[in-house]
Every structure is written in C-alpha cells, then in structure tokens.
C-alpha cells in the first residue's frame, strides 16, 4: 500500500508541530522518520495512523483519501513506544484482540483466532508463550508481542513508534536485524520513528530526516550520509565539523588565505564549510590548506580524534586520524577536507 502525505500541517493549541509536510511512501518500503525530540516525527506517524487529525492537508492510502476515515477503518498496525499491551490479557488474547473485536460477519472463529495468534507468535519467534501475561515477559519479548498484535489485523501499513526505544543496547541490535527480516518476509509498507541515526541508517530503505516540524531531507542511508543537504542534516547524522569561511573568486578562504578548495558555483560572501572528521587529507606544507594547533587528542575506538584550533578566531574543529599516524605526535597539523559542502551562513527561512 502506498501512503502519500500531502501538505499536512498540524497544530496543538496553535503551536505548529508539523508545517507543510509532504511525503510519498512506496508500497513495501521500510521508512525511518529520524529526528531529535520535538521534530514532529511521532506526530507525523500518529497522523498517518489516524490517531491525530491534520489541521490542514491530506493523507492518502493508495488513491483513497484516508483523512476522513476513522482509525478503525484505516486498518493500520501501530506498535506503541511502550507497547500498550493489555496487561490483563494473555499474550494470545492480546494478539487476537483485533480479530475478536471485528463485527460478527467478518469475525473469525475462536479456533481461527487462536491459530492465527500461534502463527504470528511463531513468526516473532515466541512460540509457546501464548498463556503468559505481559508482565511475565522481558522487554524484547513484549516488543515482539506488540508487533505480532499489530500484524494480526493484516494491516495495510505497519507503523512503529520508537520500536526499540525502551530496550537496552544489546537487545536493540538483535531486534533491529530481526525487524528487517520480518519486513522482508511479510512485505508490509512499514514506517518507524526513531531518534537513533544508527538505527535509521542500518534498517531503513529510505530515511526521512525531520527537524522543527519539517522534513529536512529524504533519501537512502548513503544519500543522507554522503550528501546532506542542510547544516542540520550534516550535524545530526554522523560526526561533522564546521568552519566559518569566505567565498571569493570561486575559492574558499579562511581569513586572508585560500585553503585550496574551489567553489566556482557558490555566490561570493560568508559561508559555512562542513565536512566529516574522517573525510580529510593530511598535508605537509601549507599552501592552500587548513592548519591548526592541536589542543586535544582522544582515542575513539579504532581511530584518534584530534581537536584543532584554527586561525586567529580560534575556531575548533575535529579531525580523525589512524591511531598510530605520525601526525598525532605533532603540535600543528595541516589538512584539507576531501569531501565537503558549503552552506550559506544563515539557514534560509523556510
């Protein structure tokens, strides 16, 4: 099922949680809504589910306008952040609930519901736990039951709100792979919300990066990581360093020196230079480079992070070097970004 969000705006008490958001989700796609808290990602998910109504704009399921449909009619599977399992019902009853509450004519028999519950428990690898109550399950198990419950109604779309948010790191990583497998098996159109970039990049076909009620960028993991289209995305996804620079004569300058990067298509004037700490090349002499004084050096996993102070303004940037690189001994390092991007100093008001 394709889902299309068209120019949706959502206000809470006049406060805009979403401003003019449009998004096309392809059938069978696994999409991540990624952003810091307050970016509107959960609101967008709840709007798609029908748990909230848009202030303006529409949401289409396929060609059908879903905006006027109630949540029951939309037939979406929603996995809540804290699972919202019915604690007075057994695991099997939880999973069968959506079938049990169907109107008489379309309601499966008790045996069928039980059968379907076992099937789904099998799918989520929890066979044999039918009779347990939610309180008797671990966090990861509850997560899986919540997913099985949402899938029991054969939803058109599967929506997950911070599906791994309440779990510890180890379980998270396991379940992440497992969710990808389930998605590949069942082929549901799936949207999940997360604030964890690693989770989004690893799991999703496409990532929707959100900030302050707006979509900043939509793209595959490679696209949003390698070619971020705004300072926000650059800063939010992965590590980044930035420096204030000046553009003149198609060249990038820091103070009164060109740093050997050409920007022929960029308008002259002040700008911000963004690059990843590891996307740099070290240089020996410094004609056309960025040179800085080492102020700190930290070992981070397999690399060494070096913090440099640049120029008279004492701007600080971070670069990443191999652990035993000779340059880590020096007090001054000269480098040049190998992959970088320029943004206007003031983010365009949008």
């Amino acid at each position, binding site marked *: 099922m394709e889902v299309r969000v068209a120019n949706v705006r959502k206000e*809470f008490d006049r406060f805009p949680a979403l401003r003019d958001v449009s998004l096309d989700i392809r059938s069978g796609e696994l999409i991540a809504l990624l952003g810091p808290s307050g970016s509107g990602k959960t609101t967008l998910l709840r709007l798609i589910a*029908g*748990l*909230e109504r848009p202030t303006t704009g529409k949401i289409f399921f396929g060609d059908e306008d879903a905006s006027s449909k*109630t*949540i029951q009619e939309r037939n979406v599977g929603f996995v809540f952040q804290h699972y919202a399992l019915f604690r007075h019902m057994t695991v099997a009853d939880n999973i069968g609930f959506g079938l049990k509450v169907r109107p008489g004519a379309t309601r499966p028999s008790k045996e069928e519901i039980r059968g379907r519950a076992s099937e789904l428990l099998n799918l989520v690898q929890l066979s044999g736990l039918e009779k347990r109550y939610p309180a008797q399950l671990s966090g990861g198990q509850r997560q899986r039951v919540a997913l099985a419950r949402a899938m029991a109604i054969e939803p058109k779309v599967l929506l997950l709100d911070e599906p791994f948010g309440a779990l510890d790191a180890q379980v998270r990583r396991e379940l992440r792979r497992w969710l990808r497998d389930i998605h590949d098996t069942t082929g549901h159109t799936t949207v999940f919300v997360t604030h964890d970039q690693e989770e989004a990049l690893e799991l999703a076909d496409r990532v929707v990066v959100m900030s302050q009620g707006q979509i900043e960028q939509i793209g595959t993991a490679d696209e949003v990581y390698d070619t971020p289209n705004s300072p926000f995305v650059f800063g939010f996804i992965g590590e980044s360093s930035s420096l204030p620079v000046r553009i003149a004569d198609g060249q990038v300058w820091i103070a009164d020196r060109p740093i050997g990067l050409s920007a022929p298509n960029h308008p002259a004037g002040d700008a911000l230079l963004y690059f990843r700490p590891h996307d740099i090349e070290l240089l020996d002499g410094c004609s056309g480079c960025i040179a800085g004084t080492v102020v700190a050096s930290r070992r981070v996993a397999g690399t060494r992070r070096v913090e440099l102070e640049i120029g008279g303004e004492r701007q600080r940037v971070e670069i990443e070097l191999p652990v035993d690189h000779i340059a880590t001994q020096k007090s001054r390092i000269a480098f040049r970004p190998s992959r970088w991007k320029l943004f206007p100093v003031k983010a365009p008001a949008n």
Partner: protein
Amino acid sequence: MTTTPAQAGWRFKQPSVIPGFGLTLGFSLVYLTLIILIPLAGLVWRSASLGWVDFWRIVTADRTLKALEISFGTALIAALINVVFGTIVAWVLVRYKFPGRRVVDAMVDLPFALPTAVAGIALTTLYAPNGWLGSLLMPLGIKVAYTPLGIIVALVFVSLPFVVRTVEPIIEEIDKEVEEAAATLGASRFQTITRVLFPGLAPAIITGFALAFARGVGEYGSVIFIAGNLPKVTEIAPLLIVIRLEEFNYPAATAIAAVMLAISFAMLLVINLLQTWSRKRYG
C-alpha cells in the same frame, strides 16, 4: 448546560480519537446539575430572597453566632490536634516496621467507614461520667461528655484520617538520599527532620489540616450525642439548622446554611490553591 459545542477558532475540546466525549460529558453535566447544582442553587436563591435585613438579623442573632463560633472553634482545635498526632502516626506507619503495621494502617480509615451515629453513641458511652474513660477523667475534674470538650473529641475522631492520609504518601516519597545528604553535611537527626524533611511535608500537612477542619465544621452525626446540645454552649451550627427546620423556621435554617456554605466554599478554594501551589513547587 453550561457548555457550548466546539466553535471555529475558540476550541472547547482538543481533538482526540477516543470516542464518547459528548455522551460521557453530557451525562456527567446533566447528573451534576440535577443532583448537586440545582439543589444548591435553590438554597442560594432562597437565602437571597430573604432580603439583607432579615438575613443579617438571623445570622447575627446571638444563638446563631455562638453556634457558628462553637462549630468553627472546636473544628479548628480538633484539626490542630490531628496535625500533631496525625503527622506522628503517619511517620510511625511509614518508617517503622512492627508486627501488625498493616492492621493499624487499615484502622486509620475507620472513621471514614464507621457511620457517624455509631461513633457518636460509642464516644458518648466511653466518655460519660460512668464510662471507661469518663470515670478515669472524672477524679481529675475533667468532664468530656456534654461539654465543648466532647465536641472536640468527636471531631478528632471523624477527621483523624485526613492528616494521616495526606501526609503518609509524601513521607513515602521522601528520597532517602536527601536525608543521607543532610547527614553527610553534618546535620543531626533532629535538624534533618525539622530543617530538611518538615518543609517538604508542610504543604501536605496544611492540606490535611484544611480537609480535617472542613469536615469538622460540617459534622453532625457524631457530635449531637456527646455534645449535650445546650444552646450557646454546646450547640453546633448544623444542629441549629436542624432545630430551625423542626420549628418550620425555614428562613433561619436557610440563612445559617448559606453562611456555612459560603465559608466551606472559601475553604475549598483555599485547599485547591494550596494543592496547586505545592504541586508547582514540589512537583
């Protein structure tokens, strides 16, 4: 009905997918209006139609003023007694382990569950000159039954749970680390309790006091047996209302009730403000 349906611009209700708002709110408002608001409005209307002169004459009559004074005075003393002992009881129940703690804790609610008339005759029997406690106090020259002291005893009983029950959960919530921090900073146990813990309990104690006071002012059943009901000495305001009713003196009953009601609402307002204030301040 005091509400209007949702209008554009000014939104009466936040949109929600949960069904049943109109039905449940509508029913609640109708029921509330029929059972509580219309009867109370009737009382206000009746007392307003008395006219100021009559109203003032009834309310400032010597017997009325005395009755109000007795009701509010004894309720105040009883509430203060409960502040002291209720706080101690709450502390003991939360902090100390002893056999039967749960039974004692449950017993604190007895005044909520025991009908006031039963409490009234039981206390009267206990404190009568030949009763278990009355006969002990008699040689000391203390008379309880049929004196203002008796009213206080009855009110201490009926309002006993309020302070205990409002203070108990707050003591339970006290973060142990706060006390340990005070101790590491050199505070003695007494200083920790009076300087660190007590200020945190104060809002709950005040709330409990206000609730106990409000309950005591309106109490009727437990008091009338033990009070002796001597006009201007041990006659409480609710009893005076009943007496005026039995004399078919409806204006007088209405006027006294209106005064009591006004004071009760003022106290309700204060209680709510206190709770809002303490919630803001202490979360």
